[in-house]
């Protein structure tokens, strides 16, 4: 088999076309916000954008921006800039790419405007906090950290009280920095839209259970953008509705995203943004990643509907037990559940050098899945944003061998 063997081109979702204009509109808004002197905030994905939309503060997510750098394969050049400033080449590739832009003004959208403030939450990794710290020191931008201590599986009791108090502290701090007061009624309106979109997202994830699966992992990964950055806006709901309807139509028509779907696999971790073509190349072998853990982080198990009556408490509960803020037991339970629900033949664990919390439990998860459920797993060394850290040839050989393992079990 060749990694680039001849085949019919993959049929892309129409919704992916409209996604491009959604992203363009978002970046236009970012630059317009800056030029008009309105406030903007750099947030990490663990900080709910809903608060900021409710306060009319433009939320910008550098992790999304980093992924864009990855997709354009410019992380190595930007990384060279951050390395020249003394930052290690071993750091997360999102960090290296973003700092490269901050230091040089270079990047896919040119120089990024300096935000009014930054907020990060501790519910993913230490890296996020120190990344924001590096930007804070360079741009001298006010920065706030929402403390969300690591939990075993749920945020409850004193932990939940603490995270809620941290959210209240965040709101007060943002109000102090911007002079904008959080109107709870306005927050509830944003939450209503956010919840509506999350419900649709949940349907999208469920539709992937169909045999054959109507979409590929490459299709869905790109649609993470509105889930991260636009929750609570009308355009987010409209986009997700169009996406859901298109996928549902495919299911109704029995459409197979991967012709002759032979292997139904699960992808664990972020994708290699610079090489989503990997999924297309594997499709030629009958492989479809019918489900993944990354998109689940925005699914109902980890980011469910927010209680409109007491939104702060409800946000705190989800933030406190975010996908990367819980322990291996809950990660295993999710994998086992997905394997069953989606009829998975095997799991590819993308061992992502740039995401330690996601990756450093994978060896153990693979062992447990094999021992408990007899589901084979492959540990694939790579990176989510730096193409120099993925040995494509070696990865391909490993994937081929893995498919043989699955064949041997049939």
């Amino acid at each position, binding site marked *: 088999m060749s990694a680039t063997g001849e085949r019919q081109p993959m049929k892309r979702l129409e919704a992916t076309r409209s996604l491009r204009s959604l992203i363009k509109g978002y970046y236009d808004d970012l630059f317009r916000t800056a030029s008009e002197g309105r406030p903007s905030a750099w947030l990490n994905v663990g900080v709910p954008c809903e608060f900021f939309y409710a306060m009319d503060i433009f939320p910008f997510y550098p992790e999304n921006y980093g992924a864009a750098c990855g997709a354009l394969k410019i992380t190595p050049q930007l990384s060279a800039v951050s390395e020249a*400033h*003394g*930052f*290690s080449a*071993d*750091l*997360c590739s999102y*960090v290296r790419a973003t700092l490269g832009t901050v230091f040089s003004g270079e990047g896919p959208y040119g120089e990024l405007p300096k935000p009014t403030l930054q907020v990060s939450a*501790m519910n993913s*990794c*230490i*890296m996020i*906090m*120190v*990344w924001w*710290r*590096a930007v804070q*020191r360079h741009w001298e931008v006010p920065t706030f*950290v929402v*403390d969300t*201590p*690591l*939990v*075993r599986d749920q945020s409850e*009791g*004193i*932990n939940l*009280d*603490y995270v809620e*108090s*941290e959210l209240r*502290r965040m709101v007060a701090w943002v109000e102090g920095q911007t002079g904008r007061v959080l109107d709870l009624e306005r927050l509830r309106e944003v939450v209503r839209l956010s919840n509506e979109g999350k419900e649709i997202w949940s349907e999208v994830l469920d539709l992937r259970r169909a045999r054959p699966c109507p979409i590929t992992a490459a299709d869905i990964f790109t649609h993470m953008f509105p889930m991260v950055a636009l929750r609570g806006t009308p355009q987010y709901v409209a986009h997700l509705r169009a996406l859901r309807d298109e996928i549902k139509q495919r299911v109704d028509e029995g459409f197979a995203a991967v012709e002759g779907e032979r292997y139904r696999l699960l992808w664990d971790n972020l994708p290699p943004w610079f090489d989503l073509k990997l999924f297309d190349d594997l499709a030629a072998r009958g492989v479809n990643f019918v489900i993944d853990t990354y998109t689940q982080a925005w699914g109902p198990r980890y980011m469910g509907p927010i209680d409109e009556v007491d939104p702060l408490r409800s946000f705190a509960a989800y933030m406190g037990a975010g996908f990367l803020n819980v*322990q*291996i037991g809950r990660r295993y339970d999710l994998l086992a559940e997905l394997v069953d629900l989606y009829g998975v033949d095997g799991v590819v664990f993308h*061992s992502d*050098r740039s995401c*330690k*919390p996601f*990756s*450093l*439990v*994978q*060896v*153990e998860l693979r062992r*447990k899945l094999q021992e408990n459920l007899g589901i084979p797993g492959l540990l694939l*060394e790579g990176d989510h944003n730096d193409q120099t850290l993925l040995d494509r040839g070696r990865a391909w050989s490993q994937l081929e061998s893995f498919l043989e393992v699955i064949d041997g079990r049939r």
Partner: protein
Amino acid sequence: MSGRAHTGEPPAGPAALARLRSVGTDPLSELAHIKERTGLMAMGYFDSYLPEELIMAHGIVPHRVTVSGRDDPRSHEFIQGYACPAARDLLEQALRGDLSLLDGVLFTRYCDSLRGVFAVWDSQKLSPFVDFVRYPTVVDTEGAVTYLAQELQEVSARIARALDAPLDERRLLDSIAACDRKRALVAELAARRATRDLPLAGADFLAVLVAATTMLPDEFTAALSTLLEHPPAGEPGDAVPVVLSGTTFDNIALAAAIESAGLYLAADDLSTGSRWYGIRVGSQPAAAGETPTDPWEALARAYLTKPPCSVKEPSSPRADHLVGLVRASAAEGVLFYLTKFCDSEQVEWPFLRDRLAREGIPVMMVEGDQKGEGSGALSTRLEAFRERFELGGEDS
């Protein structure tokens, strides 16, 4: 070594130093002796944010598990190679059975590598009891103090249940006092080393640090008191004084190699050193008519307000701490030891480098995996670093 010979010491001094060196270089043997003599259980921990007083309050011996520095590939069967080598070393010790004396271990969320090690430890049940403190990262709020005080009590309750080792309130206060005493003595030793009043070699000082979190507090205090009262003789040589900065650093052989290059480790900015022995909890029984200080709150406050590690927010007080150490010890430069794959230190390094440059303090960064004495190339770099001072020195 810096050429400071330990000759002519009074008899008590050498004996105390020999004892501390012995424990420092083989802490697990000391733990075995303690367990044999006392019959007590032992609880391991891994970073200086974990209050050892919490463990002692249950009548359990706390033991900071130090980095062994041994080459051992077996962790690769459980965790990827881009986890911090110090964290992998701790896991390897457990996997090869070196830590079988521990009846339990307590983690905090210190860093993302150690968090990965916790997951494996917990999943593989590498010790009879495994638990973690849901530790704050933000260290400068009253909310964090209140929360940590509550969380420590919840952990305490779980220890009591799981190990049938009830908490003794009186023992908690005694533990706080005992740990404050020993940390104050280590601080005194550090201060006397900094002024060359007691120019103990850096390798020996590291051994003392390891002994401090290994020996029973009263025994350690007695040994260190003896050393302070009867210091080894010796003149400060012409070695160039520097401050060693980093996170966990238990590598006694490397410390000796650094001093062999003509440098004197006059002070430390280590998480296992000055960012630990500066802790003073200070909770005492109240005098008549006074409101007693809650020992849990006192513990939480003391551990959260110590000079921070780069994994905590805010971390900026650490730079002031480091510059203060340079001034107080009249050090001529800083040696920054960056452990491979340590995310937070990798980001902190350019900041500290620039801050030191603004202060006119030369700094050299050494990246390593906490194993061995370092390479010949490292020796050459260290000697070049020393020579720049002998030649009148320029900023790095």
